[in-house]
């Protein structure tokens, strides 16, 4: 079986040392995909020819001494909701059948400008709605650690592809935990940057005020390399923060002395929590203390309203964002329709999956006359309270540590019949989106052979210090070096 690809930093070293060419890296990635992805289904599309061409161009730049940056020649995968010119942008939905984007997402432009090689597109829950990648219209992705388990979601394909060693890194999107939760389930690092840090231009919107693109990779250092490449102000996204790109790689401060780690008491509860997870996270916190950090308990009193507020706001925005998929201009139009209403109803009925329909209905209801105040407006008020919770907590600490998920990867099918149980698996991740904070999940142990995620949350724009804490942890531990056996060959 084809060998696993190295991480970004190791691949960089190998390229720089001339031990491997970019073309060889792509070939290895394609061979690896060939070997393992039939079973895993992380990828919806691979671009063998285009990726080889891009890699060859990178090798030529390297030979000419005109490299574009640290990512030059590194293969990267894109979640299927990040558009690339000339490529399909399906969002794992039937309604976008046959649609090819005429333009590049801002992050794709920036990856190309950095010399990265785009390997292909990864599976996801349809329109990023889900926590297991089972809502993909093209079939679920399997967790490389245990094939009968879900990889998490919605960026399950990206997390799985990195975990299975098909690519060194991938981009995902995180609306309520969609990068961090699959990262935790698959034993990789996933960063959701501060809202507005990375341009959303070219990210197919699920919930615009919550969506954020971020990297998945094996280490905080690798994530830093990607964040440096994709972050920075973009005037074409009105919600983009006017800040230059980060300059994190090589500058991560791994000395934690004097840093205070806050432990929110609302996140360390026994009820509904796998005890193994709690044990791993407590051990990880002890490791941070050993690295010099102080810890203290903090409180985020409105946490219990977060999931409800999240599902009101996210579905409200989604009901409007997905209105453009109406069968009239692109994508799927139902056959044999005779009236306008029939075209809308049948195209959307046939094109959207059950979870997407459920959320559109819920969001439509939430915004309806007579319900707006009780639901949408109230949820926005909760959002303000949550933001204030964090502001208050960060007065007493620099970073907040929590479990990423209350349990490890669940079996495929275990929750698909009960949406509310599925929604509750986002309980530790949604608050960062509602408050716009940066959050990262990194491997911190195993429970019954399944990876466990430690979540770190930072102040807005503290993406780089957050990566520093994660890097400090990884320098002292070996959890991120564990690889799934089944796919290890």
């Amino acid at each position, binding site marked *: 079986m084809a060998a696993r690809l190295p991480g970004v930093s190791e691949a960089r070293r190998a390229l720089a040392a001339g031990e491997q060419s970019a073309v060889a890296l792509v070939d290895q990635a394609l061979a690896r995909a060939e070997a393992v992805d039939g079973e895993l289904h992380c990828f919806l599309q691979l671009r063998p020819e285009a990726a080889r061409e891009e890699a060859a161009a990178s090798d030529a730049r390297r030979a000419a001494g005109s490299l574009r940056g640290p990512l030059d020649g590194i293969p990267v995968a894109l979640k299927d909701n990040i558009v690339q010119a000339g490529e399909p942008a399906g*969002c794992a939905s039937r309604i976008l059948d046959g649609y090819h984007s005429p333009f590049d997402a801002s992050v794709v432009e920036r990856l190309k400008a950095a010399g990265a090689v785009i390997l292909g597109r990864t599976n996801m829950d349809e329109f990023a709605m889900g926590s297991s990648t089972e809502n993909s219209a093209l079939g679920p992705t399997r967790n490389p650690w245990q094939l009968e388990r879900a990889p998490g979601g919605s960026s399950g394909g990206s997390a799985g592809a990195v975990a299975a060693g098909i690519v060194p890194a991938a981009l995902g999107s995180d609306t309520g935990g969609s990068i961090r939760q699959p990262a935790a389930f698959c034993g990789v690092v996933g960063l959701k940057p501060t809202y507005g840090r990375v341009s959303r231009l070219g990210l197919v919107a699920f919930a615009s005020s919550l969506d954020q693109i971020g990297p998945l990779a094996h280490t905080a250092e690798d994530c830093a390399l990607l964040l440096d490449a994709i972050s920075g102000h973009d005037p074409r996204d009105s919600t983009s923060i006017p800040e230059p790109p980060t300059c994190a790689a090589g500058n991560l401060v791994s000395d934690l002395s004097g840093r205070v780690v806050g432990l929110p008491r609302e996140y360390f509860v026994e009820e509904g929590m796998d005890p193994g997870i709690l044990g791993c996270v407590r051990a990880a916190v002890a490791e941070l203390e050993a690295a010099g950090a102080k810890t203290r308990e903090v409180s985020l009193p409105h946490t219990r309203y977060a999931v409800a507020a999240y599902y009101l706001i996210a579905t409200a925005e989604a009901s409007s964002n997905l209105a453009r998929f109406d069968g009239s201009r692109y994508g799927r139009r139902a056959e044999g329709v005779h009236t306008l209403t029939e075209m809308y109803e049948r195209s959307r009925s046939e094109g959207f999956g059950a979870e997407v329909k459920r959320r559109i209905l819920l969001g439509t209801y939430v915004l309806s006359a007579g319900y707006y105040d009780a639901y949408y407006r109230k949820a926005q008020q909760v959002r303000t309270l949550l933001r204030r919770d964090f502001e208050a907590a960060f007065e007493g600490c620099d970073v907040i540590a929590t479990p990423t998920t209350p349990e490890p990867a669940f079996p495929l099918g275990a929750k698909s019949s009960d949406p509310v149980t599925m929604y509750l698996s986002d309980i530790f991740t949604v608050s960062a989106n509602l408050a716009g904070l940066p959050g990262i999940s990194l491997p911190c142990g195993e429970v019954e052979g399944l990876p466990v995620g430690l979540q770190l949350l930072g102040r807005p724009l503290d993406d780089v210090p957050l990566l520093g804490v994660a890097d400090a942890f990884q320098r002292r531990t070996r959890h991120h070096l564990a690889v799934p056996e089944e796919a290890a060959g």
Partner: protein
Amino acid sequence: MSRAHPDYEVVIGLEVHCQLRTRSKLFSSAAVSYGDPPNHHTTPVCLALPGALPVLNAEAVELAVRAGLAANCSIQPHSVFARKNYFYPDLPKGYQISQWEEPLCLAGWLDIQVGEAAPRRIGITRIHMEEDAGKSLHDQSATETHVDLNRAGVPLVEIVSEPDLRSPEEAGAYLRKLRAILRTVGASDADMEKGQLRCDANISLRRHGEKQLGTRTELKNLNSFRFVEQALHAEIERQAELLDEGGEVQQATLGYDSARDRSFVMRTKENADDYRYFPDPDLIPLVISQQRIEEIRASLPELPEARCARFQREYGLAARDAGLLSESRALAKLFEGAVRATPGGDLAKSIAKWLLRDVVAALKERDATLEDARLTGQALAELVAMVEAGRVTANNAHRLVPELLFEGGDPEALVRERGLAALSDEASLAPLVDEVLAANPEAVASYAGGDKKSLNFLMGQVMKRSQGKADPAKVREILARKLGG
């Protein structure tokens, strides 16, 4: 106030959509154009492609602020774009970006005047920014509807009046006033024929003296000044008939069929849309500093209102003349140019009369505007001065107006070339009078017999013989003397 109906008080409020005069669309770089091939001016934003994001056009914001200031509104330092959600093929995103709970402009007013009635102040509730929809073309195929998205995303302001208008004529006057100020401040070309100004009207009736408003109907898409007034008259009649018969007006949205001069029901309240407005999460609140608002205010040209007051004050014009002159910026400019070119004497009132009577008539005759004209203030001032000085008769000056207006030229030279200089000296006129008296002995006789009207006949003969150049006052004087009066 003129009464629109003997038994009922008419209550009208207008919602006017006005296209801002920008180069590109409200949230995309696509050009704003008129009459180009379908879907020629579209970007991923206009087409609502997956992943496209709106970016607010700063030029549109400035023009909307100008419109708001011109309408005496309070400009809000913080306003919010919201999504108005509904499905239609010419609305690519499935929502229109508009403003809802927090519009850009609040609480303005315009003064209007109908005929000789006293001016009335009409409240403006709000002005908000929004994007236009595309166009559905139903005439391209027997079985399909085609969609043209050139107009999708074109910037508009919606100007909502208070229900302060009391007749269709007032509605017309309000619209004309609105158009004038929007043009003056450069916010819009406000050309109704090109759909740059579109009007919806809310109308209800109540018995005179009643406090409670009646049930209203909304008349949609009144796309000419004439239709606005016609449609309102027709709707007043319809509602009055209903109420006279003891019936009730149903709240409804109506269209107006101009060919049959009748309104028709488009939808009733029961199936009213729920637009599910909420703040657009792709856009941040629109924040404008007080300093910026003041900069824009300082850059505004003089508004018709202020100009009208100034014309009365500075030039002693009657309110009506001042009002008419100040409504069009070009007319006002020509007027002031002429007044300034007047050497010494105070000819402002005469210049105003000549402009409003002869120049406006000549323009109307050719269906032209002052933009097409070549008449300068200097030339107009000279012409009027010559008339006042008796150097050319009013009649001959009147004949020269169209030529001066459309060809340009110097009135002095023109009068000289054409030999139109007025004859007012005794030496030139006396022989003419003698000739006429000799040729019309009967008239002379009947004058002597006491028929004083014969003098007018004889005057006419002298004028004719002088080819209109004779100064009538002088002719009368000589005639009277020679007839021994």
